[in-house]
């Protein structure tokens, strides 16, 4: 089997990125209506899914707290970009506390600060939680995410409590979303394929053996958790400026969002970065497409009433079927590299001979 050289790989990847860029340019210019918005959402979901798969797939620890970090990133960035007059108008139960009520900054610094705050929260959550393993870690991180959500819900002088933030400027364009997705994939991809990533994969296979080889399991898991938290925060910041309204209900920035991202990475294959991106694209596309099922339609003269909630039911069924019959999802732990495509097709050709 031929190995694709580094040079060729680099050239093809660059061409692919440029090609995707032109495709996005074409979409944002020639499509009206909701499609540019959906493609932006694909990028945002991609960031959330790739950062989630770093913890749940590559590192092999199972966190259920992703939505907590997304919420922190979303709130931090939104509070930094909201115009000062808008803040004064929104916070009518209790005024916003001092430094936040007089700050307004650009989108890029706000996003980065959102990511950093989320990363710090991930450190605070990860440090105690990583002492326990398995299901207990899942429940502990879920507990932390719920605590974050409940604190947001009750801090009227910082987050406007259950009223949420409204009229967030709609800064998130296709370019911001997919640009940050590219950064996320590059950073997490180079992590996965560095010596550090090999250590992570060794730990996910066998923690004891990895520890015996001299890997500091706790430190590696914590770093991966914090990096994941950072990009979850970035995803949250973009998501807030895509939604323009955020609130701390469980169905918006709570456990439901963690479920959605989990569905994406399970569809894509736990541990695969390209799988996570594919899963995110699949999820955003079908969630939009399945709205047709939910709206009333006229089918050959027969009126079929819309069935609300149908799209989520279909996702739930797909999710369970994947877990029962194809546990590795689309990609398994592999990456959609040029080598992978080459091997795939040369194997196909070999079969035909």
């Amino acid at each position, binding site marked *: 089997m031929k190995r694709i050289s580094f040079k060729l790989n680099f050239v093809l990847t660059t061409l692919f990125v440029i090609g995707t860029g032109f495709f996005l340019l074409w979409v944002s210019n020639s499509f009206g209506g909701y499609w540019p918005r959906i493609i932006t959402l694909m990028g945002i979901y991609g960031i959330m899914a790739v950062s989630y798969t770093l913890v749940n797939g590559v590192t092999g620890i199972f966190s259920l707290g992703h939505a907590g970090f997304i919420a922190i990133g979303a709130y931090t960035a939104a509070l930094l970009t909201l115009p000062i007059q808008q803040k004064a108008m929104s916070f009518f139960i209790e005024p916003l506390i001092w430094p936040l009520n007089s700050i307004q900054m650009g989108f890029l610094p706000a996003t980065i600060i959102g990511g950093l705050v989320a990363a710090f929260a991930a450190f605070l959550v990860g440090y105690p939680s990583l002492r326990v393993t398995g299901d*207990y870690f899942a429940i*502990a991180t879920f507990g932390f995410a*719920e605590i974050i959500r409940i604190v947001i819900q009750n801090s009227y002088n910082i987050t406007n409590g259950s009223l949420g933030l409204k009229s967030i400027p709609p800064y998130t364009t296709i370019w911001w979303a997919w640009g940050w997705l590219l950064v996320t994939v590059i950073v997490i991809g180079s992590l996965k394929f560095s010596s550090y990533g090999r250590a992570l994969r060794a730990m996910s296979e066998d923690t004891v053996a990895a520890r015996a080889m001299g890997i500091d399991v706790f430190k590696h898991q914590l770093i991966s958790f914090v990096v994941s938290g950072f990009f979850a925060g970035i995803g949250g910041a973009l998501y807030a400026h895509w939604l323009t309204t955020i609130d701390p209900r469980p169905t918006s920035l709570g456990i439901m969002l963690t479920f959605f991202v989990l569905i994406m990475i399970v569809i894509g294959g736990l541990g695969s970065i390209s799988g996570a991106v594919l899963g995110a694209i699949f999820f955003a596309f079908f969630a939009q497409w399945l709205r047709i099922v939910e709206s009333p339609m006229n089918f050959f003269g027969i009126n079929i009433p819309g069935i*609300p909630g149908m799209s989520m039911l279909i996702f739930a069924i797909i999710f369970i079927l994947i*877990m029962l019959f194809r546990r590795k999802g689309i990609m398994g732990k592999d990456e959609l590299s040029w080598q992978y495509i080459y091997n795939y097709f040369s194997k196909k050709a070999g079969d035909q001979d």
Partner: protein
Amino acid sequence: MSSSNLIQDIINGLLLGGLYALIAIGYTMVYGILRLINFAHGDILMWGVYFALYAVVALSMPWWIAFVIGIALAGLLGFTVEKVAYKPLRSAPRISSLITAIGMSFFLESLAVVVWGGIPKSFNIYPKFFNRTLIFGHVRIQMLTFFILGVTFILLLAVLWLLYRTNTGTAMRAIATDIPTTSLMGANVNNIISLTFIIGSMLAATSGIMWAMRYPQVQPYMGFVPGMKAFIAAVIGGIGSVPGALVGGFLLGMTEIIVVGLFPNLAGYRDAFAYVILIVLLMFRPTGIFRVYSEQKV
């Protein structure tokens, strides 16, 4: 805080704790046997409540028959969930069964939105007799409270009797320790596991129906938070131990009510107590009060 308030809080805490305990038994029995957090447990509870509600609303049955039907159908649902989703994955990595359980929870919630509608419904199918209030000095107790406490107490005794005084119960406890050896002793492992799911689901549905009588609103996501808290109660007591689930349930219910009673401005954070307790517990004593399993650290 006056003494009558304290008594009132203790009664409310007992009530809530009993409801948590009934749900927690199902979690702890399933975890004890399969080492699986059955995330769908709370959603089976929700389905039981809907079954009971619709048995009255659509089939105009008397309320007590409807309750029995709701509980029985919830048992059937628990049985089906185990056969369809968990049994095929019994030999898979534990994380896969955990993800499937989350998927199952999501499935049952979405299905409920489609079948029953997402709008909360009022659960007013029980006789008004239960709403009558008895007044002892400054303490006011609804008849419902006696009913719920009575049912909880009887069911808890029944479960303990089943587990410690019957052959089936012995088999359940044996399977929790060692599945292969127990099957060599002639116990049918699959049947026992199914029975565990049925009993757990029926107890959860009973708790859910009483929950709906107490907080008379039914909606597709109603089971999730009580389910999570009951799971935490099971962890507090020592997961795998039924007496532990009882103690954990009552402890959690009492804490939630009494802390809010002492510090009323913490009321908004009530739902967070359980998680804080859980996290503190996991840091210092992950095996819970009744040390059943020393969770292997690897």
